């Protein structure tokens, strides 16, 4: 693993630990957020028959860098009646919640912060911190719109965690592991070994599983959309109703923290989907490194495939955002409690029965 590599290099636990902890942030999350914001604006632009950012750099590729510089320079406004402690903690907590999830995500077979046995459980637990951050932000802002947004957000995320967990449970039941690394390694070689196509074994079970895996994938995709507050579930920050929900009062870098957390979260949930259903970092078509007999090429290929798949699902999230209108609060709850949760339960039962065959 990457930790051992740095430990052997430096011989110090502290240095190698720090490097491993910061690596996803600087090697991945920040560049990804910069790229994703630009991608979002470009996708939106082209879908809406316009060009999107064009001025800063070639076709606007430096636009988000310019935006970040602007945000850093901005005044950090704290209103008189804000609860200062919570107001300051909230963006950090929200960002920490989504950042911590990256600790266990295997980007490739060697680029992995920590291979803990309860990987998927850990991810679900730490992303729960985001709710706390959002609630804090809404409360501490002392603004009615923020409060309404935060309340909606808490209700929404709690409701949609249930179908997510039920689907995760069915995968865990089937594979017998919670480690994200093992989950990825299980679905090795070609794409028909991915969980969405029934997993790596090749008997009758595999073919029985395919339709239920598809249903499970659709449910978990909808639920994760709701968990990261993306359209059609962007009710907590519904700009046409609540101005911008829980982060209405934030400016400057604190706003940037929320923004960064949102995009980090988008990738985190896409990564979880990829690991659960689409083979994690595994290549769909075998490795060039194996064919050419160059072993060090394989992790690079794996990294590429992981990012590629992750960004594809992020792209789908953007696509949906610029196509669909927004649900109403009660409709959102109906969708989760009346449809997704019962279907997820039945799906779990059926997958359980199939796995006994």
């Amino acid at each position: 693993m990457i930790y051992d590599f740095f430990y052997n290099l430096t011989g110090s636990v502290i240095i190698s630990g720090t490097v491993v902890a910061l690596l996803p942030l600087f090697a991945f999350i920040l560049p990804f957020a910069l790229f994703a914001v630009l991608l979002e604006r470009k996708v939106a632009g082209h879908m809406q028959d316009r060009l999107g950012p064009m001025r800063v750099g070639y076709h606007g590729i430096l636009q988000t860098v310019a935006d970040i510089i602007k945000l850093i320079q901005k005044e950090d406004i704290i209103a008189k009646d804000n609860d200062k402690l919570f107001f300051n903690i909230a963006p950090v907590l929200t960002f920490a919640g989504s950042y911590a999830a990256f600790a266990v995500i295997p980007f490739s077979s060697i680029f992995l912060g920590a291979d803990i046995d309860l990987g998927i459980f850990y991810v679900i637990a730490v992303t729960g911190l985001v709710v706390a951050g959002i609630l804090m932000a809404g409360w501490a802002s002392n603004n009615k719109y923020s409060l309404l947004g935060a309340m909606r957000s808490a209700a929404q995320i709690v409701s949609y965690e249930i179908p997510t967990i039920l689907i995760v449970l069915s995968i865990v039941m089937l594979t017998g592991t919670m480690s994200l690394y093992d989950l990825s390694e299980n679905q090795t070689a070609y794409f028909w070994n991915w969980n969405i196509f029934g997993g790596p074994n090749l008997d009758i079970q595999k073919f029985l599983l395919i339709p239920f895996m598809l249903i499970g994938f659709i449910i978990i995709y909808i639920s994760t959309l709701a968990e990261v507050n993306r359209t059609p579930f962007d009710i907590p920050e519904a700009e046409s109703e609540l101005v911008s929900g829980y982060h209405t009062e934030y400016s400057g870098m604190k706003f940037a923290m929320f923004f960064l957390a949102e995009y980090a979260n988008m990738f985190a949930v896409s990564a979880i989907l990829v690991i659960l259903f689409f083979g994690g970092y595994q290549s769909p078509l075998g490795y060039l490194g194996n064919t050419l007999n160059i072993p060090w090429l394989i992790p690079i290929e794996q990294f590429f495939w992981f990012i590629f798949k992750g960004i594809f699902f992020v792209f789908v999230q953007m696509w949906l955002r610029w196509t669909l209108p927004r649900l109403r609060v009660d409709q959102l709850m109906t969708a989760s409690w009346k449809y997704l949760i019962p279907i997820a339960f039945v799906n779990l039962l059926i997958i359980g029965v199939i796995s006994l065959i």
Partner: protein
Amino acid sequence: MSVRTEEMVLNMGPQHPSTHGVLRLELTLDGEIITKVVPHIGYLHRCFEKHCEVMTYPQIIPYTDRMDYLAAMGNEFGYVIAVEKLLGIQVPERVEYIRVIMAELQRIASHLVAIGTYGADIGAFTPFLYCFRDRERILNLFEITCGARLLYNYIWIGGLSHDLHPDFIRLTKEFIREFKPNLKELNNLLTFNKIFIDRTANVGILPLETAINFGITGPMLRASGLKWDLRKDDTYSVYNKFDFNIPVGDGRMGTVGDSWDRYFVRVLEMEESLKIIEQAIEQIPDGDVTAAIPKRIKPPVGHIYSRVENPRGELGYFIISDGSTSPFRVKVRAPSFVNLQIMDELCRGHLVADVIAILGSVDIVLGEVDR
């Protein structure tokens, strides 16, 4: 055991993205449920009616533009018709045709804004830009005609400021041809979207009787099921020469008179306007558009109430003349202002998110509400 709950007062606007201008809504909320809505208006008050008393009749035309700034041609049209009736003059046939073409193009442009912003209110941002893209082409047509894109001062008393541009007919035909598929695309993208229907159907139901009692006019009244359109029922200009339908709400997705009906009536009206424009372009006669413009406008003592069907409803002008070159009094019956009264009635018992959906379907322009 009962838990003590308090009602919350939420101030929506005047700086709020979905109040369509500077409207302030004072919402009283029980949780997220509306118990009372009080609209506060006047942030855009410009003393239009008082101002009219110190200006000559032609000088007022540019100020009428600034009332319903999304349908400036319609405002001019209504005012000019009122003054012409007061003066008792006839205008050439060609002028009437051009006025109708302009008014109907303006109706499409105005409905495009209404529909696009309504989509944006509901959360679908892409249809908004599609609508504005098409509206842009209509504004280009206006620009080649009179040089202005928003506030035209084009329709004058007794005539028009310019004749049509030589390319106008060709470009309008081109626009109509290309706009029809876009309308179909808009319907696929937004009108029949499941989420959009869920958000708008059965929301803010306006029964016909309530609508009549409140004096609601325009697409809102028609969505409640009454076939009432001044272009047919109290015809003016040359509208009686064209063949077009009056779409009414039929409760296809929910109940008659809900927000979806109000939205869809506007979509259908755009199609009818296209029909009128097509016919008008075919029949348009030759002539001089400035021939009948009087040199000195000094109506005889008297008063007149004249009304036209604007995109938002019945736009009426009540003008009292004391025989001088400027009116003694001008009173405008602004459709948005009258339609806005219904907000409290429609919103009670709905959620905060529905206020946005209802306000968007009422389709107000604050320039006209406040004048």
